[in-house]
């Protein structure tokens, strides 16, 4: 589903002393099947933005379209339930998403609510547990008696169980251990490709944005600051720094090498071990002639 924001405003608690303009005149489009990263410092409006994608928030100005669904101020969305079935959102705090007595019921809730039959749900669960790396013995536990990282995995499993066509992930790997972070991102990416999903990832990891996204939107104080491919954006150090963002670490390090040793060593997608070999070659002594 194509997604578009047209001059969207969102104001929290309008006409009160706490009135807060969280989104201002925000416009962009996301074409169906793309993998988009949304980055920006805390409080820049990322979570507010994505809550529009399944109609949890409605714009207070402008218009949001998600495929055939339209969100506008003062107008109820007709098929909000269908929209929520199509757009799966993993929220920033997984605890907020969990509520049922057992992990299993929690994961099954979404599809059950959308009328998926019992047998189908039973079939969906095992591969999903495998994908999010949750051991089966946790199924009968209360989701509130889990560690933070385990809760996050349950919340992700619940969203995957709905088999959405748009996947919205708000800092989905916060709280996961390092292996979990990598495996989870690889899993999302594989799912994105295999099912032709439209994926929207809110992340603080420039590394993940660089590795997985084909398009990046940078937010600052509720407005769109820049957008483009990661390769184009992540070389503009000064512009990024002006909004509190860093370059991906490998690019930062390459810059420092170039400065210190007066060599040219651009980022071209090299792995760390390839970089090791490159450095060995480039910096090997002051051999003046061949």
């Amino acid at each position, binding site marked *: 589903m194509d997604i578009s924001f047209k001059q969207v405003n969102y104001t*929290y*608690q309008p006409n009160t002393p*706490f009135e807060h303009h969280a989104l201002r005149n925000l416009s962009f489009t996301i074409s169906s099947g793309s993998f988009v990263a949304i980055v*920006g*410092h*805390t*409080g820049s409006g990322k*979570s507010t933005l994505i809550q529009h994608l399944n109609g949890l928030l409605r714009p207070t100005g402008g218009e949001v379209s998600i495929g055939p669904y339209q969100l506008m101020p003062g107008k109820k969305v007709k098929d909000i339930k269908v929209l929520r079935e199509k757009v799966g959102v993993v929220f*920033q*705090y997984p*605890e*907020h998403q969990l509520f049922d007595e057992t992990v299993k019921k929690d994961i099954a809730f979404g599809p059950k609510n959308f009328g998926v039959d019992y047998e189908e749900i039973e079939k969906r669960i095992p591969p999903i547990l495998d994908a999010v790396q949750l051991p089966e013995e946790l199924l009968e536990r209360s989701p509130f*008696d*889990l*560690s*933070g*990282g*385990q809760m996050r*995995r349950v919340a992700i499993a619940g969203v995957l169980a709905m088999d959405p066509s748009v996947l919205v992930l708000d*800092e989905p790997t*916060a*709280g*996961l*251990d*390092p*292996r*979990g*972070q*990598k495996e989870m991102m690889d899993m999302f990416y594989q799912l994105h490709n295999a099912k032709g999903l439209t994926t929207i990832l809110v992340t*603080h990891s*420039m590394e993940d944005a660089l590795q997985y996204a084909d398009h990046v939107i940078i937010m600052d104080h509720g407005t769109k600051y820049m957008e483009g491919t990661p390769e184009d954006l992540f070389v503009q150090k000064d512009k990024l720094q002006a909004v*509190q*963002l*860093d370059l991906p*670490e*490998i690019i*930062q*390090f390459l810059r*420092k*090498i170039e400065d*210190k*040793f007066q060599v040219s060593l651009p980022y071209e997608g090299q792995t*760390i*071990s390839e*970089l*090791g*070999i490159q*450095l*060995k070659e480039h*910096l*090997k*002594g*002051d*051999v003046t002639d061949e």
Partner: protein
Amino acid sequence: MKKECIEFRNVSFRYSEEGPWVLKNVSFRIPADEGVAIIGHNGSGKSTIAKLINGLLFADEGEVVVLGTPVTEETIWEVRKKVGMVFQNPDNQFVGTTVRDDVAFGLENRGVDRSQMITAIDNSLRAVGMIDYMLHEPHRLSGGQKQRVAIASVLAISPQIIILDEATAMLDPKGRKEIMHTVNEVKDQQGLSLLTITHDLNEITQADRVIVMSKGEVWLEATPREVFAREKELQEIGLDIPFVAKLANELGKVDVPISQQPLNHEELLEELWTYHSNK
């Protein structure tokens, strides 16, 4: 000998009698004024350790001693006065209706007088960059802003021990660095001990010592440099090492000499400079 601040003596714990052991014979000591990081895979027992320190849970076997006092039902109030803790999800710990009230709450509990209270609130909110949000409702803040306020509440009460359980996970990288810098400054100024539980590999480099947990057991206790030298084994237990450490290890593999495991870009650049000038 330095004064012991936190000591675990052969601690075992499970959440229910039929349940699995979540901590198995865990022992470690944290001297006063040391900064220690605990890392470990999800479910390895890190938050359980934190909850045992401030008496939200009690050991089934062994003993937890905080500043010389064994943690028991009778001593928890005394212990909690000395321990400031920020939880993984700050929502669980907001009590006030405004950010200011929330920070005030801990101070009131400790009987701090009004004028001192105002200064403490001011200073701590300023330190975490949330002074402009003094009258906002905590639950309406963004994730990272909530975490900043939770940290301010702990700084305000100047505890002798600060425990941060993934307290910066929702912050952007810059914000995370700034906050950790602030916390470390306070730690040095006031000579307190800091226990950080984290999955952020770069945060570990600031610690004096690292406790690595795996499956409820202490798997390793070492300096950050020593930990980063064990890349393969760490990966086997679900962990990893930072970019700089990885690159250093890769350079080592292709025979670029690295004299000591670097902790940051500058240290690695120095190593490369030596390599560059020597051949």
